[in-house]
C-alpha cells in the first residue's frame, strides 16, 4: 500500500503548496488545494478498497469475521461519524444553542443502551443482518421481508442527509451547483462501495477514522491557539468561548483579534447560545427530551450499527468493540460543540451574513483565517465522514435487498455470483433513490438523519429488544408492534414531507409539535413495545425451538 500512497503524496505536494495561497472567500469558486486533498483522499480510499476487496458473499456481508476489537471500534466510529456528526451537530448547536446538545447526548447515550441490552446477545444470535434476526426470531418469512424493507428505508433515509453533506462539501470545494455536487459525490461513493464491499469498507473505515478525526481536530487546536484559549485541550478550552458568548466580549477585550473578514473577535451578550431551551431558539424542554430519547432508541435499532456486531469473532469482542467505538466517537463529539462556539463568535457581525448552517464547521475554519489547505483537509474530512457512513449504509441496505429479500425469499437457489450481483444492483438502485431525495433539500443534515433514527426506534428497536429479552414475544406481537410503530412513523413523515413541500394537512400544528419528524420515536417506540407485549400475551406462545435457542444460545 505504502508504495502507492507515497508517490501520490510526492506528486501532489507541489500543487498543494501552490494552492496554499488560494482565496479565503466563504462561498463560490473552485478551490484548488481542497480539491487536490479531496481527490487524494478518495484515491487512497479506492486503492484500499481494491486491495481489500470482497472475494465472496461472506466477505461482502460481514468481512469474514476477522476484524479486531479496536479495529472494529474504529470501524464503528467511522461508520457512525457521518456528515451528521461532522457537519450537522455543530450546525444544530450554531443555530439552536443548548438544544443541539440533545443530538450530542442522543447519539452517544444510545450506545450504552445498545451495549447493555443487545450487543453481546446479537452476536450470539449469529445472524448476518437485522432482517435475518427478525425472520428467524419471529419465525416468519413475511417479517423477514418487512424487516429487510424497513432496513432499506432506514438506510435510504439516513443516506439522504449524508448525500446532502457530500453535496455541500463538493459544492464548496469544486464551486459547482448543489445539484451537480450531489450527483458527482453520489457517483463517487457508489463506485467505491461497489469496488470494495464490506471487507474493503472495514479496512477503509479504520483509515477513514484517522483522517476524519485528524482533519476535525487540527483546525480546532489552531483556532483555540489563535484566539487565545486553552489550546492544549480545545475540548475543554472552548468552555471559555461559551462563557464569553454568554457574557459578551467588548472590542477592547478582543485584543486586536479579527476574523478573516476583518471583524473584531467581539460579540454582544448572547446567553441564548448556552441557556437551556431558550425561547430565542424556538425549542422547548419537551423537544430536548424527545430528541435525546428518540436518538438513543434509534441508535440501538439501526441496522447498519447492529450489523457491525456480526463482524467480530466473539460476543466479548462485540461488547468491547462498543466501548472502543464509543470512545472514538466521543473524541469527535467532545469537539463538535467547539466549532459551533467559535463559529458563533467569528460570525457575530451581521456583515458575515446568513451562513449555511450545515457548512458552519468549514466556515468557522475559514473565518478563523486558517490556512486554506487545512480548511481543505477539514472539508475532505467531512466528505470522508459521509463516505464512510454511506458505504456502510449501502452495504446494509444492499445486504437486506440481496440476502434477505432475494436469496432468502425470492431465489434461494441462486449462485454466490448471482447473489453478489444482486447486492451490487441493490446498491446502485439505492444510490439513485437517495440522490433524488437529497436534491429536494428537505431539512438540515442532522434533522434528516434523525428521521432515520426515529424510524429505527419505532420499528427495529422494539423487535430486537423484545426478541432478545422476552421469549414471550411472538410473531403476532411483532406484526402488531410493527404496525403500531410503522403507523406513527408514516403519520409523522407524511406531515413532515407535506409541510416541507408547502401542503397544509389537518392538525398539522399538533402533529408537528408532538410527532415531529426528528423525535416521533419518543411515543412510537413505547407504543410498539406495549402493542407487541399485549398481542403476544393474547396469541399462541412462541415455538419451543425459538425459546430453547434464546435460553441456551443467547442467554447461557
Amino acid at each position, binding site marked *: 500500500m505504502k508504495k502507492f500512497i507515497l508517490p501520490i503524496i510526492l506528486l501532489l505536494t507541489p500543487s498543494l503548496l501552490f494552492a496554499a495561497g488560494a482565496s479565503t472567500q466563504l462561498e463560490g469558486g473552485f478551490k484548488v488545494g481542497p480539491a487536490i486533498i479531496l481527490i487524494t483522499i478518495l484515491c487512497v480510499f479506492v486503492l484500499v478498497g481494491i486491495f481489500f476487496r470482497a472475494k465472496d458473499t461472506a466477505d461482502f456481508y460481514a468481512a469474514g469475521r476477522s476484524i479486531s476489537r479496536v479495529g472494529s471500534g474504529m470501524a464503528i466510529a467511522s461508520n457512525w461519524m457521518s456528515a451528521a456528526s461532522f457537519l450537522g451537530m455543530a450546525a444544530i448547536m450554531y443555530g439552536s444553542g*443548548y438544544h443541539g446538545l440533545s443530538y*450530542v447526548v442522543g447519539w*452517544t*447515550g444510545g*450506545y*450504552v*443502551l445498545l*451495549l*447493555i441490552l443487545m450487543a*453481546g446477545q446479537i452476536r*450470539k444470535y449469529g445472524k448476518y443482518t437485522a432482517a435475518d434476526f427478525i425472520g428467524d426470531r419471529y419465525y416468519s418469512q413475511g417479517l423477514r421481508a418487512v424487516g429487510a424493507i424497513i432496513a432499506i428505508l432506514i438506510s435510504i433515509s439516513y443516506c439522504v442527509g449524508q448525500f446532502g453533506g457530500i453535496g455541500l462539501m463538493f459544492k464548496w470545494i469544486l464551486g459547482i451547483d448543489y445539484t451537480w455536487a450531489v450527483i458527482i459525490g453520489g457517483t463517487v461513493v457508489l463506485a467505491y462501495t461497489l469496488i470494495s464491499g464490506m471487507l474493503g469498507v472495514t479496512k477503509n473505515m479504520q483509515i477513514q477514522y484517522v483522517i476524519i478525526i485528524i482533519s476535525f481536530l487540527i483546525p480546532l487546536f489552531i483556532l483555540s491557539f489563535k484566539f487565545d484559549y486553552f489550546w492544549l485541550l480545545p*475540548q*475543554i478550552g472552548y*468552555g*471559555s468561548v*461559551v*462563557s464569553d458568548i*454568554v457574557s459578551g466580549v*467588548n*472590542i*477592547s477585550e478582543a485584543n486586536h483579534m479579527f476574523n478573516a*473578514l*476583518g*471583524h*473584531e473577535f*467581539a*460579540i454582544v*451578550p448572547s*446567553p*441564548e447560545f*448556552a*441557556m*437551556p*431551551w*431558550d*425561547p*430565542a*431558539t424556538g425549542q422547548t*424542554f419537551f423537544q*430536548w427530551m424527545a430528541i435525546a430519547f428518540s436518538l438513543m432508541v434509534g441508535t440501538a435499532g439501526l441496522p447498519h450499527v447492529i450489523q457491525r456486531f456480526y463482524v467480530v469473532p*466473539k460476543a*466479548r469482542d462485540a*461488547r468491547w468493540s*462498543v*466501548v472502543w467505538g*464509543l470512545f472514538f466517537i*466521543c473524541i469527535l463529539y*467532545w469537539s463538535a460543540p467547539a466549532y459551533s462556539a467559535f463559529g458563533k463568535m467569528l460570525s457575530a*457581525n*451581521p*456583515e458575515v451574513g446568513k451562513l449555511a448552517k450545515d457548512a458552519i464547521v468549514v466556515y468557522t475554519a475559514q473565518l478563523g483565517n486558517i490556512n486554506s489547505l487545512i480548511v481543505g483537509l477539514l472539508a475532505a474530512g467531512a466528505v470522508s465522514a459521509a463516505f464512510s457512513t454511506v458505504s456502510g449504509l449501502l452495504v446494509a441496505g444492499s445486504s437486506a435487498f440481496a440476502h434477505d429479500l432475494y436469496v432468502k425469499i425470492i431465489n434461494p437457489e441462486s449462485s454466490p455470483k448471482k447473489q453478489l450481483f444482486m447486492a451490487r444492483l441493490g446498491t446502485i438502485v439505492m444510490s439513485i433513490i437517495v440522490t433524488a431525495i437529497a436534491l429536494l433539500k428537505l431539512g438540515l443534515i442532522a434533522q434528516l438523519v434523525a428521521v432515520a433514527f426515529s424510524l429505527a426506534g419505532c420499528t427495529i428497536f422494539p423487535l430486537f429488544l423484545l426478541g432478545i429479552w*422476552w*421469549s414471550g414475544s411472538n410473531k403476532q406481537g411483532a406484526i402488531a408492534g410493527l404496525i403500531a410503530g410503522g403507523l406513527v412513523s408514516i403519520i409523522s413523515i407524511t406531515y413532515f414531507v407535506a409541510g416541507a413541500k408547502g401542503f397544509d394537512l389537518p392538525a398539522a400544528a399538533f402533529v408537528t409539535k408532538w410527532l415531529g419528524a426528528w423525535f416521533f420515536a419518543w411515543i412510537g417506540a413505547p407504543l410498539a413495545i406495549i402493542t407487541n407485549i399485549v398481542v403476544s400475551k393474547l396469541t399462541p*406462545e412462541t415455538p*419451543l425451538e425459538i*425459546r430453547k435457542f*434464546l*435460553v441456551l444460545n443467547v*442467554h*447461557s
Partner: protein
Amino acid sequence: MDPNQNDYHISFFKPTTVQAKLNRNLAIKLILVWAVAIFGFQYLLKVIEKPTPEVAYTNYEKVWENILSENASTEQMQIFAHTSLSVLGKGFCKPNEKEALNNAVSWVSYQLADSSQKEQLLIKTKEFENLKTEITSISDPQYIELKNSLSELGSNILGLQSNDPRTKIVSLELVSSEMELFKAENKELIPAIMSTYLIHNQSFLTDFKFLGFPFHYFYTAVFLLVLFVFLCWLYCVRIDKMYLRLDIEE
C-alpha cells in the same frame, strides 16, 4: 403441552438462566445511573430555572413606556436603541422582527440627530444602501470607508462607547426609509421581541462556572459523554469478571 416447554422461557424481569440474571441485575443498575444522569439532570434544570432578564431587558423595561408615549428623554431613547441593537446583534431574529428593530434603531438615530447630523445620516445611509447592492466584496475600500464613517456617526448619535461591539453593527442596521416614523405595527411587536430574546432560563447551575463552562453546559456536553464511555467500560469489565467467575465460555 409438553411440560419441558415451560423450562425454556426467558424474560428481562424473570431471567431463568444465571447469565441472564446477572446481566439483568447489572443492566438495571447501569441503566438507572444512565437515565438519571441524562434525563434527571435536565428535569432538575427545568425545575429550578427562573426566567432571568439580561441587563439590556431591564433597561428596556425602564424606558419603554416613555418611548411609547413619545415622552422619552435623549438618554432613554439611546437606551432603547442600545437594547434594539443588542437583539439585532444576536443574529437570531425573524425577518419581521428584524424589520421592527431596524425601524426602532433608525427612528431613534434620526430623532436624536441634530439638524446637520440628520442630513448627513440620511445621505450616508442612502449611499451605503446603494453601495451594498453594487459591491462584489465587503473588502471594497469605498465600502469600508463609508461603513466606518456611518458607524461613527450613528454611534455618536446613540451614545455608544467605542469599545461596544454594537458600534460595529449600527451602520448595517440603519434603514433610510425607516427614519421618519416608528411604525405602529412595529411598536406592537417590540415587547414580544424583547422578552423572547432577552429573557433566559437560568439558575445556579447555569450561572456557576466549571473549567470555564457554564456548569450545565459542561455537564451535558462533556461530562455525560465521559460517563457513557465509563458505563460501557464498567459493563464490559463486570461482565468479563462475572463470566470468568462462573466459568462461562461464550
